[in-house]
């Protein structure tokens, strides 16, 4: 194997270099998190191929990001394995170890790509069949003309940030023109310094002022977007609306004999089943305020599979159902409601498998050296 490229990608030096870069990246990212905020630091440092810096007007890559280091490590492991592989009983251990690590890396990449986390906030007595994203918003355009059902077209707010308009005749008989989009915003009823009056022609009306706000960096604060959107059709427009994550009520308009509602809300994930909060308990150690246990008794109903059962969800005892896991995450300060964290992660088992593989591989490798050694000594 004299190909210099293959030699490079299979070298141990590359492994060491990647690990060192990885250490630097973790340290730098941890420190950067202080002023960037957890979410932004994660995205910029770890969920990226490069970390970019500014050189005048250009964005230049200045350091490899998490994806790049991870990918190179994975490639390095695979190429080195291919280069040095010699079949043999003694080598089974090494193969298992390597495969375990490959599975770990691949599993984590899949988790990052595919997992979705959301929340279900239920007041006692409330039933919900959807969960909401923590930070992602969506513009829901709902056709309410039907007698029994509504048709929802949910456009992720990220798309509003990147495009000037949204047109899809298959979904909506009109074009949404995004005149202005603020990823983080503030709304006021009175004119204040820095606030402008958006050119609204329908919906919220004249006593609203808005401004763009800098993105939130603190962990427990979230960006709340607002946007000025015009509904455009070839023969006129029902108006230009201000939609905002702050406004919980939808705004309605009519077009061609159909009625629609529009609302900017946290992204919703609807499920084929519903969860009803029967009871919520916040237990404290007697005589103190120290929390002992949080538990939610919920009723899980799935009309399609005819399931209807009660489940107790409490700390370290989540509900696993329908490919999703519901954890007891938080609660309302008046103890009248519970917040469940809903995690959908198809790759959740990979770390367990990879740990087992690596452990077995290590034991095998150790034994395959130990046993001959002991035999030689006995001889």
């Amino acid at each position: 194997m004299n190909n210099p490229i293959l030699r490079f990608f299979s070298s141990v030096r590359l492994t060491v270099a990647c690990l060192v870069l990885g250490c630097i990246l973790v340290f730098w990212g941890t420190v950067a998190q202080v002023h960037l905020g957890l979410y932004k630091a994660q995205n910029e440092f770890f969920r990226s191929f490069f970390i970019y810096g500014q050189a005048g007007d250009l964005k230049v890559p200045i350091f490899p990001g998490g994806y790049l280091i991870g990918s190179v490590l994975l490639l390095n492991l695979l190429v080195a394995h291919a280069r040095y592989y010699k079949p043999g009983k003694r080598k089974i251990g090494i193969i298992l170890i390597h495969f375990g690590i490959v599975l770990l890396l691949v599993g984590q990449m899949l988790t990052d790509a595919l997992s979705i986390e959301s929340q279900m906030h239920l007041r006692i007595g409330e039933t919900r069949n959807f969960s909401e994203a923590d930070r992602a918003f969506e513009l829901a355009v709902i056709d309410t003309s039907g007698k029994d059902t509504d048709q929802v077209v949910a456009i992720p707010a990220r798309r509003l940030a990147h495009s000037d308009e949204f047109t899809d005749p298959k979904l909506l008989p009109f074009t949404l023109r995004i005149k202005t989009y603020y990823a983080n915003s503030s709304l006021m009823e009175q004119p204040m310094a820095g606030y402008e009056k958006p050119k609204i022609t329908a919906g919220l009306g004249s006593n609203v002022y808005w401004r763009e706000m800098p993105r939130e960096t603190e962990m427990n604060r979230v960006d709340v977007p607002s946007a000025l959107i015009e509904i455009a059709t070839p023969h006129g427009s029902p108006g230009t609306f201000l939609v905002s994550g702050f406004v919980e009520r939808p705004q309605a308009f009519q077009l061609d004999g159909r009625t629609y509602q529009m609302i900017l809300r946290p992204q919703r994930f609807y499920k084929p089943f519903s969860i009803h909060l029967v009871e919520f308990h916040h237990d404290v150690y007697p005589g103190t305020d120290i929390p002992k246990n949080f538990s939610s008794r919920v009723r899980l109903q799935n009309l399609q599979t005819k399931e209807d059962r009660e489940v107790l969800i409490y700390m370290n005892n989540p509900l696993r159902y329908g490919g999703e896991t519901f954890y007891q995450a938080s609660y309302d300060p008046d103890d009248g409601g519970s917040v469940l964290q809903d995690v959908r992660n198809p790759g959740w088992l990979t770390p367990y498998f990879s740990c087992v593989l690596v452990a077995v591989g290590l034991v095998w490798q150790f034994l395959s050296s130990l046993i001959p050694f002991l035999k030689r000594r006995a001889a």
Partner: protein
Amino acid sequence: MAVAVATLVLVAGCRRDEVQVYRLAKDQTPTEIPTMNTGALPPGHPDVAAGQESAAPLTWKTPAGWTEVPATELRVASFKVNKDGKMVDVSVIPLAGMAGTDEANVNRWRGQVGLSAVSADDLHKSGETVDVGGQPAQLYDITGTNPASGEKLRIVAVIQHRPDSTWFFKMTGDAELGEQQKPSFLEFLKSLKFSAAPAAQAGMPATLPPNHPAIGDMTAPPAGGPVSHEGQPGWQVPAGWQEIAGGQFLVAKFIIAANGAQAAVNVSSSAGDGGGLAPNITRWRGQLGLPPTDDFSATQIDVDGGKGQRVDLEGTTAGKPAKMVAVIVPREGQAWFYKLMGDPKVVDSQKDAFIKFVQSAKY
């Protein structure tokens, strides 16, 4: 293979931007905002004047002399009171999420009546707890002058943090009429009934849950509990001190209970010098029912990185005897306030532990 995974990651990222389309059975959608073009309410809109329908998310009892005006724009309810040519306007506005800190909002209202901003600490003291729909809320009574017209203007504002949103109840207008109408305003707030949220109510919790796991991370679920340690210096908490949620303005709060009596330790910080020794001593004396004095002496104690100012005071709160030990720790650009206050016996027994606690704080 690495290339394949990398491609999958990119593709999945694009998938997150995909538009979702689905059909839902009709549920109770929240009351729509009336369209601006028509003066009348859109057809099918619940009668606003009634406000008593069980389907409406909010019901109340309208006080005598208050004229209800149609809810529009951001307002869920809106009233006007006219007497002898004077006027006040009452609004109820819910905003999803946190909608700014209480300090930011109150200082904004103070600015509207030509008053200067106050610090978070002073704000906490000036707020009055009132009942809104059976739950506590903070009331701020602000009187000043309208910078534009020179008229005396009063804003009585109540902020209530509800699970999904922050509700603002404001009575704005002529200062005297506002004073007159304040009891009616308080009655109105008590009469509010928030019905159980229907399935369709959107909105996010007022804060993300504590110990929120990183997005995409697979770590074990969080332990739960309202105490957040964000922004706290590293310190050693003495035995017997229970930390509870500090709320908006405190960095930390501890309760010490012994033999049926209790004391509390509040830790807060302010930008700059936090006002300096004199105004804070005056404020603390006020909290113990003591008159202001000219004596602003304090004992200097050693703390991490310098010296702190310690003040010992004795007085009464709510008719009962109380003691206080307060320490100001000035640091570059920020001042930290530590206050032990409560039952005299508990304070006496905890004094030394408190000073040790203050000294153990590393910033």
